């Protein structure tokens, strides 16, 4: 392993657990501890713990923090109530997606209000560079990159809430979905948000880096009798794919706009101005030319990112952006973009799967939805 890779505070634990480690966005991250399928199923049936400390955490303080973020983001965040969280996108002037983010409006126990932006690990440097020049227009706002000072842990699955119920000063199960709070764990501050990237219930926890190992081990112990295990980025990827969630660098990039990506819900185009608004209004008027779709390939051979999608006449009409065997459905699933004319649910098409055509059907997303 190259020594230039960054380590999360939990890396020693991953090593001692025998994880398969691989470079991801500049960090040495656990891909799996044993079987990806077992970790995936543990999340669907019990609970799993993920180290997601590689995700970027940017803190915005100052009276105009919400106004700055409103200017940067496709979705209005200035009306976020205290403790509320919103998914949004950051676009360039052309409407290309720079990143997809979560914005939280949080207040410390001592009454200090700030906004937290969680960004993709691979985009953190780019986003910091993108935001920095805009700070001059909002002199009251300071941006602090908290990523290396903190750790982030996700606990996800149907048993997640009962596992972590007693570990925090305030019970996380009192939080509604997409709400967060700053509470305490062993009298140390912890940000707890009811969010996730698996399609399951659960929370994400942000603590100071030096607290990470203790809280991780507490969760492992508390979860043992509930079937909780640690899961790596491999299972995280198959879980989010089943849940129909886009992943930056695959479904999303600077050449794709939010409307094409099917993320219109995260764009407030009326009565406000933000970076990329004009481009997005134009795209909205004309309608995007491609659509993000779910794909069910026939047979057992998984289709993978980069495979061409073909019409039944053999014309290239799109491409696969993510594909994997679905542990829950027991068959291959994929996401991709196709030309609008071919995007209707239940349409049949072909996928060029590394030199062999494979029939596939368009299906509505998500592939998996938990019972609430």
């Amino acid at each position, binding site marked *: 392993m190259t020594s230039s890779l960054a380590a999360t505070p939990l890396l020693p634990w991953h090593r001692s657990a025998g994880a398969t480690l691989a470079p991801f966005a500049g960090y040495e991250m656990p*891909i*799996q501890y*044993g*079987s*990806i*399928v077992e970790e995936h199923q543990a999340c669907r049936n019990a609970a799993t713990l993920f180290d997601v400390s590689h995700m970027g955490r940017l803190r915005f303080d100052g009276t105009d923090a919400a106004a700055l973020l409103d200017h940067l983001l496709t979705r209005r965040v200035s009306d976020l109530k205290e403790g509320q969280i919103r998914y949004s996108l950051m676009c360039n002037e052309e409407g290309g997606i720079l990143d997809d983010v979560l914005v939280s409006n949080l207040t410390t126990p001592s009454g200090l209000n700030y906004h937290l932006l969680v960004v993709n690990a691979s985009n953190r440097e780019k986003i910091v560079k993108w935001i920095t020049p805009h700070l001059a227009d909002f002199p009251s706002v300071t941006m602090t990159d908290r990523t290396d000072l903190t750790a982030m842990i996700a606990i996800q699955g149907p048993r997640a809430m009962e596992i972590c119920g007693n570990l925090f000063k305030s019970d996380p199960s009192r939080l509604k979905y997409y709400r967060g709070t700053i509470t305490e764990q062993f009298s140390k501050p912890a940000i707890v948000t009811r969010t996730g990237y698996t399609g399951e219930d659960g929370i994400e926890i942000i603590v100071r880096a030096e607290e990470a190992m203790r809280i991780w081990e507490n969760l492992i112990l508390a979860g043992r009798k509930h079937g909780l295990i640690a899961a790596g980025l*491999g299972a995280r990827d*198959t879980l989010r794919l089943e849940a129909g969630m886009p992943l930056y660098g695959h479904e999303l990039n600077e050449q794709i706009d939010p409307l094409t990506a099917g993320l219109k819900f995260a764009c407030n185009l009326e009565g406000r101005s933000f970076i990329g608004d004009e481009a997005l209004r134009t795209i909205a008027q004309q309608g995007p030319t491609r659509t993000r779709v779910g794909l069910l390939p026939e047979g*057992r*051979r*998984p289709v*993978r990112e980069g495979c061409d999608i073909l019409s039944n006449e053999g014309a290239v009409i799109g491409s696969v952006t993510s594909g*994997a*065997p679905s*542990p829950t459905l027991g068959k291959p699933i994929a996401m991709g973009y196709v030309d609008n004319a071919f995007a209707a649910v239940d349409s049949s098409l072909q996928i060029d799967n*590394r030199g062999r055509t494979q029939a596939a059907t368009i299906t509505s997303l998500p592939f998996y939805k938990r019972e609430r």
Partner: protein
Amino acid sequence: MNPEQLLYAETHEWVHIDDQGDQKIATLGISAFAIEQLNDLVYMDLPAVGTALDAGQEFGEVESVKAVSPLYTPIAGEVLEVNSDLPDNLEWLNEEPYGKGWVIKLKVTDDSGLANLLDHAAYEKQCAESG
């Protein structure tokens, strides 16, 4: 098969040679080390009987949740037999990679590729260094 008596390619295929005097039959499989590394096997692709293969040619693939791994033959030959039940019973690769998890049998047409193969001890060393 006894794994200690097999030959191994750097790409993790194992080879067993049955020298019948007038012809040599090679049985190819995938090493236990590679199967363990692959983890969570989901799919396998095998060649048709009668396919002529050059040394170093790809003859199939084995796929896990995360990745696709091509299979290469280290020696030239004609595909005599394939383990056609294997793709529907991928667990055989985990259970018996040197037994019922065999992949193909070749009628050897040129065995000069054997010179490039590792014996068990050398292969173990390679695995230890990469692990």
